[in-house]
């Protein structure tokens, strides 16, 4: 296999991987504050893409304002979900809350199907679709947009968690809810905030990816699965790990398809993930003590 092809596999892997990474970031934020794996995270991504399409086509807005509006709407949806399905039962066990998010994801998917039908839609790319040549391989301008915005979000989150009082408060909730409550942090508000930020990150992802991956009411399922895998691969709870995990998963799939067999590419990625977990039970960059007995 020549080097241009290998480079092409890498580029395509990074593009696909950023879709996983962006979903994984959303998982991380809610997990860090609540310990919940939010099964509706993939639906946030779907809503980001579908609402952008909807605002552009039906409401006739230009792409940028459509996306901004879509992101705002999904952030609001995140808040509503927390307020109406999580807060009323906040003392329930984690597994119950996780099942609630499964219910929420089914509910949202159903609503989206009813509202926009079962078709697939595409958003126009932000700056044309003329490929850029790079050492014999090609890069799409949209891929560069995606990678750049993902990096921006990642550094934004880092600044938020380490530099603002809200960010620190959310981290405190992750460490110990009771202690956070005792030192005067409003845990409820932090949980609400985490759902909103998750919604925001997911929606941005959905909107910037839609020109490449296309979107439909049911894209959330597979994105949720891959995003969760990316989280675990990178080490749950670590935003940097989540993003890196996503990129690695994408690259593994792409090289698996290119060099081994396209039929088994997903199996290949998951086998590597399993082997890695057996060696490192808390993921690549996991900070938490793994309970190995």
């Amino acid at each position, binding site marked *: 296999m020549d080097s241009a092809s290998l480079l092409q596999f890498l580029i395509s892997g990074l593009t696909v991987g950023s879709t996983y990474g962006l979903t994984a970031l959303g998982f991380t934020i809610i997990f860090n504050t609540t310990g919940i794996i939010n099964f509706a995270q993939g639906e946030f991504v779907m809503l980001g893409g579908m609402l952008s399409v909807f605002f552009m086509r039906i409401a006739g807005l230009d792409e940028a304002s459509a996306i901004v509006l879509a992101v705002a709407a999904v952030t609001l949806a995140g808040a509503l979900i927390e307020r109406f399905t999580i807060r009323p039962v906040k003392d329930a066990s984690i597994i119950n809350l996780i099942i609630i998010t499964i219910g929420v994801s089914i509910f949202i998917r159903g609503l989206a199907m009813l509202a926009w039908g079962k078709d697939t839609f595409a958003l126009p790319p932000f700056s044309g679709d003329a490929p850029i040549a790079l050492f014999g391989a090609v890069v799409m301008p949209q891929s560069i947009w995606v990678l750049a915005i993902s990096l921006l979000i990642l550094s934004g989150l880092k600044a938020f968690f380490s530099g603002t009082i809200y960010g620190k408060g959310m981290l405190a909730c992750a460490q110990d809810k009771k202690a956070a409550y005792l030192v005067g942090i409003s845990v409820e508000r932090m949980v609400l905030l985490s759902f909103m930020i998750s919604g925001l990150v997911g929606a941005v992802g959905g909107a910037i990816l839609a020109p490449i991956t296309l979107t439909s009411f049911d894209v959330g399922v597979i994105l949720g699965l891959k995003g969760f895998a990316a989280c675990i691969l990178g080490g749950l709870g670590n935003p940097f790990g989540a993003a890196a995990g996503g990129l690695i998963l994408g690259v593994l799939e792409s090289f698996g398809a290119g060099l081994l067999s396209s039929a088994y590419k997903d199996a290949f990625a998951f086998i590597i993930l399993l082997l890695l977990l057996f060696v490192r039970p808390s993921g690549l960059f996991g900070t938490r003590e793994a309970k190995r*007995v």
Partner: protein
Amino acid sequence: MQGLKKDLLLTGAFLSALCLAPWVLPSGYYLTVLIMCCLNAMTVVGLNLLLGYAGQISLGHAAFYGLAAYTTAILTTTLGLPVALGMLAGVGLAALVAFVIGIPTLKLSGNYLAMATLGFGVIVYIFLNETVGLTGGPSGFTGIPRLNAAGLTLSSDRSYYYLTAAVLCAVVLLSLNLIRSRLGRALRALHTSEKAAQAVGIDIARYKLFIFVLSAAFAGAAGVLYAHYLTFIAPSSFGFLFSVELLVMVVLGGMASVWGSVTGAFFLTALPEFLRMFENVEIIIYGAILILCMMFLPRGLAGGVSSLAVRLRGRARPGEDDHAS
């Protein structure tokens, strides 16, 4: 012995109810719904032993179900072996795979364990889908024979239903017994605190593995019965969404409650049939029912029923609640 008597009585009553059902609901359609309910219930009871008692999550049980179904399908259809043998081999293989996978996997915990089992499920699904020569690939495996044990062919839906109901009751009885045994107590200790359980000399790894293998065998039993009932299987029935659905049945039914699991499985399997008339809105209603149940019945359907019973009796007897199983 009090417990055993109660369990036998309850299981006997349940079996009689199942046997009476075809007379009350005469159409073959209801029989098929009930068979599906029984099959899912078997798997869910096993999964609850793992999740509710041993405290270990699995998002890969659809894979054991599928592996067993394909094993018996290939052995009986492609190789022409007797159905009973194929069924045994199917359950055996599911248990064996669980044993091999369980050793490294059960060292993980929480979400990492969830991911590892999920990943295992995805891998099995892809292999079922891609080894077209062996499994028939995504368009499915056709022509699986019906069960013919001891000279009589269980070709009618009704006789097959009785068989399925009997197997479910055996699974239930076995599980209830297990919970009351030494092993059950050890498991509860394990669930409460792994460290403490280890300190009093419980071999945690072995118990976890045993339950994992047992639950896979239950899933396998459901899988082989499914294959020989439908006589057609396709990988899409054994995907990760089915694993998630099984998990939902466990939690919705009530954690650490065998009867809860049976209730959860019957409820969620039959629910879509009742919602059929809502067409496109069906999925929304299904999601909403799931959310509402989890919000208002935190201990699942079983917990809800037992607290209702307590309330009806007019006085709180908190001790009773834990006996919901």
